[in-house]
Every structure is written in structure tokens, then in C-alpha cells.
């Protein structure tokens, strides 16, 4: 009898724990406010300890990181040396390109932030999970940051806020499979949705018009169409290649992101949400660029699992971020 009780009790305990876990998962997935609140509080409580320990142990951590990433650092060193030589050779040409770039920036509205207020934030941690491409920044609700706000770096879009505590926020990077963004190719006004594919593979983009022309070098910017969590005109990536698909008129297009998501130190959080955005009529986009009916564009969003439409061309972006 005693043996029977002893063997049954652990299974009963496991059953209780499994039921507790399933309850927690259900409560979280149903979107209740309690779980984010508890998470935010926990992060706020633990943040000072994390910062203090992180500061104290940084030399050791850097040593380990350097040791474990030696091969990558060596490769990076060689690659950067080659790039440096190339850059020096192109220095003269860059003078011309700078002027051209300035003109294109004006055309493409690459001064994308405009009058949207921003909050500068420091990246304090990489992905907290091996299954999400995120970064943690040192600004939270105390600085006016809200869930859903876009995050940009010098050249363009980084991602958007998915979790906020008082003094920290988590940013879901563009390259995460759960991230998607509505894009627009500036010259042709072709629109579509770019979706992350994780670090090992590439971003996929679904074009509304599969036959749309997207030449190499074309800049893709956020479309900012109705309901989009991103304002219009934020650079996302450049077309790196456009390969025709056999038997159809569409192309498989490859984009390179404008921001190196693996080298982020500081970012800007745009104090902007879809709710605060002006109506499409009030936003008065550039002539010729607002002709795409919003209804024809797939819904875009951040963290919803989703998205690509079978049979449409896919676009890939080299992510450069480990999970």
C-alpha cells in the first residue's frame, strides 16, 4: 500500500503541474492583462540586479563571448578588411553617390521620422529567448513608450515594441517569424508584406501584384496603410536580386535590410501608434503614392503568426541576427 502511494503521488504531482502550466498558457494566450502586468513588474524588480551584475561581470562575459565567437570574429575581421579596401577605392565615387543619395532621400522621404517625437534608447540585451528575435532596450512606459510603437535605427526600421515595463521594453525584430510589415517600393508603388523568417532563413515578402517591377536596388519603405502599426515611409530594405519564376510572370525578389540588426547599440522609439496616426486623407502622402487602395493590401501587423500567401512571390532578407 505504501509503495503504491509512493509511486502514484509523483504522477499526481506531475499532473497538477501540467494542468497548472496549461492554465497559465491559456490565460496568456487569451490575451488577459494580468500576465503582461506581472511580467512587467518582475522585469522592473529584477532590472537593477541585472544591470549591476551585468556591469560587474561584463569583462568575464565578454571573455566568454569572445572565446565562443572566435571563429566568427576571425571571419568578420577578414570580411571587414576586404570591405575597407573596397570602401577606400569607392571613396571618390561616394562623393557623387552622397549627392545622389540625398536627392533620393528627399524623393523617398528617408528623413522618415519627420515630426514624430522619438525616445532614444540603449540596447541592453539581446534575445531573451532562443525562439524569438528580440532585443531589450532601456526605456519603458516611464519614458512614454507603449506597446506597438515602431523602433528605428539610423537607416530605417528595426521592429516594434511588444512588451513594456516601467524602465525596459522588448523589441520584436523585423526578422522574427512573427513580425510582418507592410511595404511599398518607392518608384513603382508596388506594395506587399514582408515577413520575418528567423535567423537561418530569410524574410518573405508577399507582393499584392506579383508582376510588379522591383528592380535591384529599389528601396522598400513602410506603406503606412490604414491599420498599419508603422508610419509611412520608414525604410525597410533594398532589393538585392529579382529572379523570375519559371512559368509565371512573377519574380522571387531578395531584399537586404537597411539596418544591421546584429549590430544595434542605440535605437529610437517612435512615439507613434496606429491609433495616433492621422487619417489617410489627412496624412496627404506624396503624389502618386497613395493610389493603392488600402483594401487590396493584406493586413499587416507585428506579432501575429501569419502570413504569406501561397503562390505569390516571396522576398528574402538576410537577417543577420541569431535567435
Amino acid at each position: 500500500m505504501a509503495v503504491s502511494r509512493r509511486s502514484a503521488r509523483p504522477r499526481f504531482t506531475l499532473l497538477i503541474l501540467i494542468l497548472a502550466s496549461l492554465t497559465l498558457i491559456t490565460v496568456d494566450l487569451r490575451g488577459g492583462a494580468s500576465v503582461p502586468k506581472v511580467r512587467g513588474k518582475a522585469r522592473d524588480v529584477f532590472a537593477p540586479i541585472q544591470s549591476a551584475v551585468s556591469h560587474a561581470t561584463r569583462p568575464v562575459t565578454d571573455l566568454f563571448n569572445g572565446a565562443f565567437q572566435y571563429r566568427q570574429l576571425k571571419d568578420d575581421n577578414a570580411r571587414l578588411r576586404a570591405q575597407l579596401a573596397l570602401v577606400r577605392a569607392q571613396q571618390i565615387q561616394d562623393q557623387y553617390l552622397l549627392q545622389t543619395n540625398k536627392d533620393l532621400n528627399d524623393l523617398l522621404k528617408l528623413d522618415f521620422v519627420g515630426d514624430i517625437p522619438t525616445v532614444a534608447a540603449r540596447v541592453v540585451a539581446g534575445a531573451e529567448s532562443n525562439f524569438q528575435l528580440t532585443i531589450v532596450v532601456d526605456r519603458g512606459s516611464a519614458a512614454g513608450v507603449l506597446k506597438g510603437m515602431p523602433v528605428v535605427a539610423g537607416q530605417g526600421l528595426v521592429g516594434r515594441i511588444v512588451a513594456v515595463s516601467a524602465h525596459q521594453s522588448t523589441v520584436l525584430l523585423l526578422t522574427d517569424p512573427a513580425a510582418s510589415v507592410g511595404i511599398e517600393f518607392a518608384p513603382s508603388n508596388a506594395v506587399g508584406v514582408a515577413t520575418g523568417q528567423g535567423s537561418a532563413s530569410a524574410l518573405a515578402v508577399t507582393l499584392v501584384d506579383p508582376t510588379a517591377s522591383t528592380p535591384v536596388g529599389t528601396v522598400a519603405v513602410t506603406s503606412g496603410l490604414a491599420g498599419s502599426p508603422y508610419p509611412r515611409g520608414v525604410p525597410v530594405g533594398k532589393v538585392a536580386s529579382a529572379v523570375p519564376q519559371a512559368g509565371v510572370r512573377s519574380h522571387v525578389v531578395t531584399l537586404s535590410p537597411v539596418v544591421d540588426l546584429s549590430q544595434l547599440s542605440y535605437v529610437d522609439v517612435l512615439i507613434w501608434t496606429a491609433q495616433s496616426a492621422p487619417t489617410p486623407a489627412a496624412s496627404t502622402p506624396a503624389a502618386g503614392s497613395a493610389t493603392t487602395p488600402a483594401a487590396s493590401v493584406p493586413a499587416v501587423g507585428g506579432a501575429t503568426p501569419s502570413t504569406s500567401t501561397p503562390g505569390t512571390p516571396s522576398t528574402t532578407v538576410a537577417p543577420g541576427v541569431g535567435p
Partner: protein
Amino acid sequence: MTSEVPWLRASLAVAVVFSVHEALLRGLRIDGVRPDILLGAGIVAAIVGGPELGCVVAFVLAVLGDLFVNTPFGLSALVASTVAFFAGSIRFALGTHTRLAVPTLTFLGSITGVVMWALIGTVLGLPGLLHPHLVTIAVVVAVVNVAISPGVAVLMRWVFTPSAERSYAG
């Protein structure tokens, strides 16, 4: 059970492991993978202290870990407690004289835990979890957990020895 378990020691052990994971190892990445010693500590706890107590420790550690990520809350707890329970069950089915039990079961349990997490996450609708990099994640997590398992085993013996002796020692 309440009278047999040294909850104060268990709480201290949980606090130590969790602090090491969230503070000390927060910035460490090996081939782009963040070590998950919470999973490893839970498995070792079950190997040392038995499946029942071990899976409770694993559950608590994983719930704490879930507070700091944005994946479904409780998913890690479900995986960790289940894996720890079976690791502990196998350990005590093997007997008391298997020296390699801790590293072997920690390695296998960690790999199982990572893969199980990805599979259940996929079932719950999380995209992009089942990709080739999952192998790297599983191996790195498992190797790191094996590396820390002797230290964690010492800690868990300190926690569970009185209880383990009464319950399992022959």
C-alpha cells in the same frame, strides 16, 4: 510532503540558479544561442531529489524564466516539469550506482526539452520554430547544462539529501 521537503533550502537554490541565469548569463551567447540553465537545473533537481520534488523545482524555475521572455507564459514550465519528471523517474529506475546518470540524463533531457518546446510552441501557433538552427540550440543548451550539472548537483544534494535519503536511498 510539506514536512519532508526543506523548502527554505529549495527556495535558496532556486534563487541562486535563477539569479545566475538572468543576471550572470544574460549576455552570454554561444553560436547565437542563449544557455538555458533553468531547464538543466530542473532536470538535475529531479535526478538528485526524485521526480516528484524535481519536477516542482523545474516548474518553479521555468515559470520564473517565463516572466522574462515573451513566449507563451507557462510553456517552459510545462516542458521543464515534464522532462524533469521523466529524467528523475529514469534515474531512480536505474538505481543508485550510475555515475553517468546526471550528465547523460541532463544532456538527453535538455535536448528533449528544447525540441519539445519547439513542437508545442508550433502547435500553439508560434511561427518559425522548427528550423535547422533548432539543432544548434538543442546541442548548445544540452552541452552547457551538462557542463554546469556537477555544480547544480552539489547544490541540489544540499537541498534534497535529507528528503532523498528517506524516500529513495536503499
